[in-house]
């Protein structure tokens, strides 16, 4: 048994035991405490189900706010124990037990018949995309074990990441519209759960296969993951260097490699760079002054994962020999962690705005309703003349009482018609 199964059995057993103790406790306070234990167990199960945000909400709202409210009301009413009057409905317990057993049996039957669990959970399925970087191959279809994953891909085109079931696949590239049996087998790839992999077809004449791993987890702001791949067959090795703002190398300038020099078909380690524009250029690894491609338009988008692929493009009309270096840029936004606050917030504020607002209004109404319901009805203002409350004597009359002369004398009275005259000596 894996550790996850053991954890599930233990936590599940504790949650059922806590629910049973809640039902059987005579004291309502004990019941509430057992229910809190049950809620904690359910929060742990949420964590195991990749719902980290809900686990914390469960603890904060359910085990925290709601259960504190319960305990408060139990203790406020002094309702820990009920006096045991005779049951008025003697037929209730056997009928309830029969109904509950029927529900249990029906539910179990539905589970057994329904075959809930025949599929692999989608969240764990590996993701795959295909990049066409083979200059001599026209629009192509790419197949995984006869399943089409890239339909009519032109040179330099990229498919989006798609989820496929994990397993081992034969990759076949064929001319667009051709039978996959007539295609060129590129090789075999193995996809494990949770992986994101990129398949690149590159090279002259007969394409070769390169498989790169991607990392789609969220990055800190203003950073970008970059992987460089050399699919250019015109030179033995290329280097990606940082040139400085003018995209030229001076005589005295030291060559700064962004990544280690790459041989044909070699990929760099995945590295993290600051987002924004970069002054990078691909050069011959043996001769840094031989520029292949200046990446003037390159701007790294923040919080993405970028593949920079240097490929060679056949120049039209200049014979078959010349390969012009071009950049194939394959960017992919990062995917927020499943069940984390970012993913739940994203879907909540994009797809579920209206229900979110309705629930907010419902909470407001509930708040007002609770206040109205608990208000004592017999508290009414007494009929009769409304009494005015004297706050304090005005400062001028205090001064007048102490000095014997009215400081306000001779000045116009500012008091309104309804206010009482200040009394100098008090009552």
């Amino acid at each position, binding site marked *: 048994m894996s550790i996850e199964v053991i954890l599930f059995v233990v936590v599940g057993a504790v949650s059922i035991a806590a629910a049973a103790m809640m039902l059987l406790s005579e004291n309502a306070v004990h019941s509430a405490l057992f229910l809190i234990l049950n809620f904690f167990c359910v929060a742990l199960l949420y964590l195991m189900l990749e719902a980290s945000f809900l686990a914390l909400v469960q603890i904060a709202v359910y085990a925290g706010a*709601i259960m504190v409210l319960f305990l408060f009301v139990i203790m406020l009413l002094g309702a820990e124990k009920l006096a045991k009057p005779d049951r008025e409905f003697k037929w209730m317990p056997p009928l309830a037990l029969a109904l509950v057993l029927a529900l249990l049996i029906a539910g179990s039957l539905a589970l057994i018949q329904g075959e809930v669990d025949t599929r692999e959970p989608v969240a764990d399925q590996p993701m795959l995309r295909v990049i066409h970087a083979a200059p001599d191959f026209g629009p192509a279809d790419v197949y995984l074990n006869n399943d089409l994953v890239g339909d009519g891909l032109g040179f330099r085109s990229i498919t989006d990441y798609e989820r496929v079931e994990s397993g081992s696949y034969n990759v076949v590239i064929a001319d667009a519209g051709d039978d996959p049996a007539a295609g060129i087998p590129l090789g075999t790839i193995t996809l494990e759960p949770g992986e994101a992999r990129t398949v690149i077809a590159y090279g002259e004449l007969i394409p070769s296969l390169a498989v790169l791993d991607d990392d789609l987890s969220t990055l800190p702001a203003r950073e970008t993951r970059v992987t460089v791949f050399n699919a250019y067959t015109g030179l033995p090795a290329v280097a990606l260097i940082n040139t400085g703002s003018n995209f030229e190398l001076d005589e005295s300038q030291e060559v700064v490699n962004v990544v280690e020099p790459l041989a044909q078909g070699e990929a760099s380690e995945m590295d993290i760079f600051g987002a924004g524009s970069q002054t990078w250029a691909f050069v011959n690894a043996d001769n840094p002054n031989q520029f292949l491609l200046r990446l003037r338009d390159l701007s790294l988008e923040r919080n993405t994962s970028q593949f920079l692929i240097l490929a060679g493009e056949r120049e039209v009309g200049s014979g078959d020999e010349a390969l012009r270096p071009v950049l194939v840029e394959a960017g992919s936004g990062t995917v927020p962690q499943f069940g984390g606050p970012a993913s739940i917030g994203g879907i909540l504020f994009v797809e579920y705005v209206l229900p979110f607002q309705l629930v907010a209004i419902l909470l407001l109404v509930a708040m007002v309703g609770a206040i109205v319901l608990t208000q004592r009805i017999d508290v009414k203002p007494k009929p009769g003349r409304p009494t005015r409350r004297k706050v304090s004597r005005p400062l001028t009359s205090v001064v007048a009482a102490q000095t014997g002369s009215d400081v306000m004398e001779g000045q116009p009275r500012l008091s309104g018609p309804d206010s009482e005259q200040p009394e100098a000596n008090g009552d």
Partner: protein
Amino acid sequence: MVPTEAYIILSLVLFVMGTMGVLLRRNAILVFMSVELMLNAANLALVAFARQWGTMDGQVFVFFVITVAAAEVAIGLALIVAIFRSKQSINIDALHQMEG
């Protein structure tokens, strides 16, 4: 990995226990707590299916259920307090006579 069916069975058992609490206990507050237990069991099933299908919709629904449960508890406990004031009891058998 624990199969989704195991979570659904656990959820079913918890739901049934909540139902028994609602039907058999006489203390109104305990009936209320049993309703919370049933809501939690349903939430557990929703989260398990959300993982199974790889979409966040189930988890968003659980979020809404938790919010509605909070509203329901606020109203329900206020009702219990109001009933306790007039009847001096929260035994639900004593409440079926609606007079007064």
